[in-house]
């Protein structure tokens, strides 16, 4: 074999779509499998519309095992992380989690992620599509005495919807004590698992990390309940769009900074005062003076969906682009997200999108499109 052939083979292996631990489970449940983030994943089971509406009323189980589950341990992990993200990680108490952003040196967003203080270590969940880049960036940027683990032996499930707490607490009663953005360790059938009250739908719900060999039994135990159905990627996308939550690689990328991405809430107060995160000069400048453009929600007139890539216009002037869009089942109309000049980002501003050469009237809208139903107090 020549060197060229070897290289070709390596490229082919790298490009091959991988199979997640629950692959056979999804297929047995009628999941239609598509390629996503390098894995075969279920886009839908019975249908995106029905699955979407089910999550808003009941509880849906999502397999998000494609996401990267990392842990960082060692001395001064929080301080080290703060050189890479704009959040106040030092102030994050054990059992608490925070949404944050991995930034490049210009303040561009490399990924959005969840950071959890697990007491003896920090847990990080990153997007599946960029997890290898994230791991490389973290390893390269963090001091050598901080240990970075990629927990490929663990899968990640999300149980989302108003009935999620009812369903999950039948299996793990102590999960009832969590509120939004809290996390805990627990056991199920003798297996160590981790649970957080978080998600990507705007509904109450949980994310559960558990050993790969337990995923089948745990998923079966949940889906045996009347409240729970398996939900595919299609509904995950429409649910998060209604919740106003950006999708990395579509609504966020390295050309966009946190202020432009309407994620300034992720820049903690102390960090605004002290700086010291990548791209602080640009980001703090945008915080003080406004950014040239901003991510906004769009309500679309009529029934024709406006999708990613559609150009946005103010009169005859092209002003921006749609980064996510589609029919919103709970709104009953098309909605979208995109970037416009900050001067045109006020809710109520009338603009237009271009779809197949036609102009469609859109109105800048406050997000979320569907109110969040997070549980912020126990016993409420």
């Amino acid at each position, binding site marked *: 074999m020549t060197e060229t052939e070897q290289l070709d083979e390596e490229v082919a292996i790298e490009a091959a779509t991988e199979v997640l631990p629950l692959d056979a489970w999804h297929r047995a449940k009628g999941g239609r499998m598509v390629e996503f983030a390098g894995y075969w994943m279920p*886009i*839908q089971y019975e*249908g*995106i*519309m*029905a699955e*979407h509406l089910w999550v808003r009323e009941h509880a849906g189980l999502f397999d998000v095992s494609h996401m990267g589950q990392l842990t960082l341990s060692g001395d001064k992990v929080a301080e080290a992380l703060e050189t890479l993200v704009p959040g106040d990680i030092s102030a994050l108490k054990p059992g608490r989690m925070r949404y944050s952003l991995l930034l490049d040196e210009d303040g561009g967003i490399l990924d959005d992620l969840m950071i959890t203080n697990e007491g003896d270590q920090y847990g990080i969940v990153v997007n599946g599509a960029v997890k290898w880049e994230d791991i490389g960036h973290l390893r390269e940027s963090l001091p050598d005495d901080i240990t970075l683990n990629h927990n490929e032996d663990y899968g990640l499930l999300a149980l989302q919807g108003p009935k999620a707490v009812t369903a999950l607490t039948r299996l793990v009663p102590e999960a009832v004590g969590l509120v939004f953005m809290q996390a805990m360790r627990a056991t199920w059938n003798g297996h160590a698992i981790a649970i957080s009250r978080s998600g990507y739908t705007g509904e109450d719900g949980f994310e559960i990390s558990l050993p790969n060999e337990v995923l089948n039994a745990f998923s079966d135990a949940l889906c045996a309940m009347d409240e729970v159905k398996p939900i595919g990627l*299609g509904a995950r*996308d*429409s649910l998060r769009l209604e919740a106003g939550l950006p999708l990395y690689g579509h609504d966020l990328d390295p050309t966009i900074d946190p202020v432009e991405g309407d994620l300034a809430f992720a820049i903690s107060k102390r960090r605004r005062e002290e700086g010291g995160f990548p791209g602080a000069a640009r980001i703090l400048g945008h915080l003080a003076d406004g950014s040239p453009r901003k991510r906004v929600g769009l309500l679309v007139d009529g*029934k*024709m*969906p406006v*999708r990613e890539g559609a150009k946005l216009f103010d009169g005859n002037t092209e002003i921006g682009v749609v980064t996510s869009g*589609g*029919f919103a*089942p709970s709104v009953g109309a*098309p909605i979208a997200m995109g970037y416009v000049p900050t001067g045109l980002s006020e809710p109520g501003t009338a603009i237009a999108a271009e779809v*197949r050469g036609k102009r469609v009237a859109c109105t800048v809208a406050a997000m979320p499109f569907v109110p969040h139903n997070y549980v912020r107090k126990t016993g409420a």
Partner: protein
Amino acid sequence: MPRYYTEEHEWIDVDGDVATVGITDFAQGQLGDIVFVEVPDTGAELSQGGDAAVVESVKAASDVYAPVDGTVTEGNNQLEEDPALVNSDPEGEGWFFRLALSDKSQLDGLMDAAAYKAFCDAL
């Protein structure tokens, strides 16, 4: 009234020099929940294999192609109000448009029901 099928999953019912076009049950099943349909304007000149209509599901927009050359005589306006008709009755009430055929010999290149079924089974 003979019905023909294309490899792009359109069906075409021919009645003399006029035909009705829609997408097959297989196609609607693949697309999932239909939320929007754009049918061609009356008078539009279509050519075989060219864009004729657009059908959008929750997740994506797909083109519907003209099975043969012709001039559109009518679009199904019902789909504007009720695009889900394409899911519930794709090969009946969920038709897309009617056209006056320009070249009936083009029908010879299309599949009949048995051939189309075999085509889908092989996918």
